[in-house]
């Protein structure tokens, strides 16, 4: 059993004066070595390092090993482990009720792409401000390893049976349908994961991060395309990703070759620094992004990086033009119209 442990070199106190403890959760009950545990650790670190008030975060999930993990980080945040595949709607409702909260959805590939693909598709369309992390192991961990809808063609179960249906690529779907921050990463890559998560935390729109997260118990064998080994052997990085937090203008995390870096300013003022590894890749070009992701899938590449960012598009809360005070905090006087209003209607109907 691994607790969602602290990073070694993290400063003791963050910019809002908290130490790491408030960012931790309960001891994990996932298998030792499960990729999901590493992701939990990164979440703890990122929220701590960004100095986000954990009481202003909500954690949302469906059902699965991955969906259990919110219990293992951010113990000071309200959490909602809902029903299988339908977390997007619960998250949408919660954000509508209180738009000031940072919504963090953590779910599995089965939860998202099998039972949940309908709600996922519609979530993308709305560009709801939410950080949506898919802990993608290509299988149903909690029900003992059956294929999920992200399993690759030809990938095998422990029994040797091969998957014969094409996978759903949650990233290309997200880009196509309207999400505005879309990335893929790997549970084993601490640095990339941190940068990608932090970028998402500063984005006010739908962020999808598909994290390849091997299931050591059911899907880490030879023949699986979601094993640690397979990812290491087939990984292709689109960019080297750096991150400059909004509260730390000077600090530059990476020495980038001048000119090859693209800097994207997120809604919170932080900057995502993408050092291009593929010459002309432009994360602002929706169609190119889809094409690149789909090509990778066809070639069996595990492509990681920030595929698409659009900080211009209005999010769902913008579209609704909500009052500055979150609905959940409005007092009776603002929720119940005056009696004159009722009189007016009664008059019309008389």
């Amino acid at each position, binding site marked *: 059993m691994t607790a969602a442990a602290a990073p070694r070199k993290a400063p003791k106190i963050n910019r809002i004066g908290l130490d790491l403890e408030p960012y931790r959760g309960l001891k994990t009950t996932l298998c030792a070595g499960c990729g999901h545990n590493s992701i939990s650790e990164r979440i703890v670190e990122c929220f701590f390092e960004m100095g986000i008030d954990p009481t202003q975060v909500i954690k949302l999930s469906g059902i699965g090993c991955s969906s259990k993990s919110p219990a293992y980080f951010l113990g000071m945040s309200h959490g*909602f482990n*809902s029903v299988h595949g339908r977390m997007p709607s619960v998250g949408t409702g919660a954000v509508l009720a209180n738009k000031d909260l940072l919504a963090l959805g953590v779910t599995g590939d089965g939860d998202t792409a099998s039972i949940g693909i309908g709600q996922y598709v519609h979530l993308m369309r709305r560009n709801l401000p939410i950080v949506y992390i898919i802990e993608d192991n290509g299988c149903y961990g909690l029900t003992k390893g059956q294929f999920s809808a992200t399993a690759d063609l030809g990938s095998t179960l422990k029994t040797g049976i091969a998957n014969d249906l094409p996978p759903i690529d949650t990233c290309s779907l997200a880009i196509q349908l309207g999400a505005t921050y879309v990335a893929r990463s790997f549970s084993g890559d601490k640095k990339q994961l941190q940068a990608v998560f932090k970028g998402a935390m500063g984005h006010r729109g739908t962020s999808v991060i598909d994290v390849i997260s091997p299931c050591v118990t059911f899907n880490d064998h030879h023949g699986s395309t979601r094993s640690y080994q397979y990812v290491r052997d087939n990984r292709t990085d689109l960019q080297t990703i750096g991150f400059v937090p909004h509260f730390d203008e000077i600090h530059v995390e990476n020495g980038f070759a001048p000119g090859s870096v693209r800097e994207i300013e997120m809604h919170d003022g932080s900057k995502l620094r993408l050092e291009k590894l593929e010459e002309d890749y432009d994360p602002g070009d929706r169609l190119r992004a889809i094409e690149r992701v789909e090509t990778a899938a066809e070639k069996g590449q595990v492509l990681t990086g920030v595929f698409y960012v659009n900080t211009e598009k209005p999010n769902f809360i913008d579209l609704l033009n909500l009052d500055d005070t979150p609905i959940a905090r409005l007092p009776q006087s603002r929720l119940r119209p005056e009696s004159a209003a009722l009189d007016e209607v009664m008059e019309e109907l008389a």
Partner: protein
Amino acid sequence: MATVDVFAPGEALAPTSREVVNDFSIQVATVNGSGSQSANLILLRALFQMGIPVSGKNLFPSNIAGLPTWYTIRAGKHGFVGRKKEIDFLVAMNPETAREDVINLDPGAAVLYDEPLNLKALRSDVHFYAAPFDKLVAPLAPPKFRKLVRNIIYDGVLAYLLGIELEEVRKALFKQFASKLKAAEMNWAAAQAGFSWAQENLEKADPFRLERMNENQGKIIIEGNAAAALGAVFGGVGVISWYPITPSSSLAEAAQDYLKRFRIDKQSGKATFAVIQAEDELASIGMAIGAGWAGARAMTTTAGPGISLMSEFVGLAHFAEIPVVLIDVQRMGPSTGLPTRTSQGDLLSSATLSHGDTMHPLLIPANPQECFEFAARSFDIAERLQAPIFVMLDLDLGMNYWMSEKFEYPAWEMDRGKVLSAEDIEALQGDWGRYRDVDGDGIPYRTLPGVGHPQAAYFTRGTGHNAEAGYSEREDDWTENLDRLKKKMIAARKLLPKPVVRDNEKAKVGFIAAGTSDDAVSESRDQLARGWSLETAYCRVRGFPFSDLTGEFIARYERIYVVDQNRDGQLHMLLRRQFPEFHDRLSSICYYGGMPLDARTVTDAIVEREGL
């Protein structure tokens, strides 16, 4: 086995001297999409303005245009405006159904028909009036408007035949076309033309007549859906997530309209609400649950198929104790069933929706006032109980026009339930448990996300948990939690509206009914008392689980007839479940034909069962 005196069928008809004033039914048979709705509403309003108790019920097909539709107006001088089984005055505009419509009339009825239909030949025991609508409409409107204007002509003809004051027709008409003055003028001309033509060409022979009364002072006319929508708005709804489905769509749409009107800040233009058309019912209930969890007053609207789809999520809300309101405008099931017919067929499935042991409170309004009040109160109850609450309308109540007293402004303080603030948590030094039964009523305390205290958070889940909201598979945690939930639901009775009880010292027989059965039962009691000297008592339940008062009512009468608008006697079943000791007093009367329940159906059943 009719219970009202009728002519012997086929008997020829002489002009009658017997007058029937202000207590009969008018049915207009047309085709949907033909614009007859306006003409019918004008008729309804004109009667309303004449101070006559009245209702209007639309019987429409589940398609958009081109199929038969019947609009029925019931005038009821004694205040009984439920559906009357017999049609007294038929306006036959639809060639497809005219024959059958006429054949189904009782002798003595009257028919106004479109001349080319040539219905007169069909029988000799009803009064016929033929009007040449096409001829009449031609000079009144250019061809493309004729289809619509044509219908207004029958308003004019009826005004003459029935004695509707033309001035009231005019007022109703201009109200109807308020935003389109041109159309109003054209239609007003049509109404007048109909009237004049009738005056010159028809000779009144039937007994049906309307005359001014003074019953509608201070009253309004409204559909139950609009009333419930208003209730939600004045109840402080914050988030409505819904998916279109007949007969509930107009509720969400009306709510959205009222919210836009009254809940957008005049200065900033910003909204204190969100109305979301979700992608389906699983999403709409999920959004409402998420919003309720995060502290907004949240609701969804739907009908039977949606209730079924929401089943898993409602179990979650019940078990994780999340306030949320579901308004079910019931239509005829099972399955897609008859989407445009009314029923009370979801009582049972709603009361115990979802797998495992569950129970959900129901509020069952019977009229627009209750739609308004119960919708508003449902949020208080949901937040107090931290549970899904069902408001059970039906198509008849929701989509038809009802007279009503004006709604009273909700003067009560909203009850936001047991919510701990940051100060509360501080005072408790963090020693609180999300699912602890502190007050002994089974209702725990909650915190809202974002309240900001470091000890405020808890983890919400549909899996087993202990009083501290910690995950638990322990036998004792589980059973204690389930016991508390049961206790809470029993406590719910006190929060629900009490039954409306009409005791009767002379009676041995009592009725129990709910919702829109009210009109029929009330009128039937009158029929039974006057026609068969059978005195009855009546208890109209308005909430489930039932109040103890309902049990006491049952105890007071020897034989209780439970009236249900479904096949299996669902209200009867729920009553027997809660009051098993009275099982042999409770018998079941079920109507499930999809029409609004009528008094005669109830009376016939009682006459037979009581051997009268």
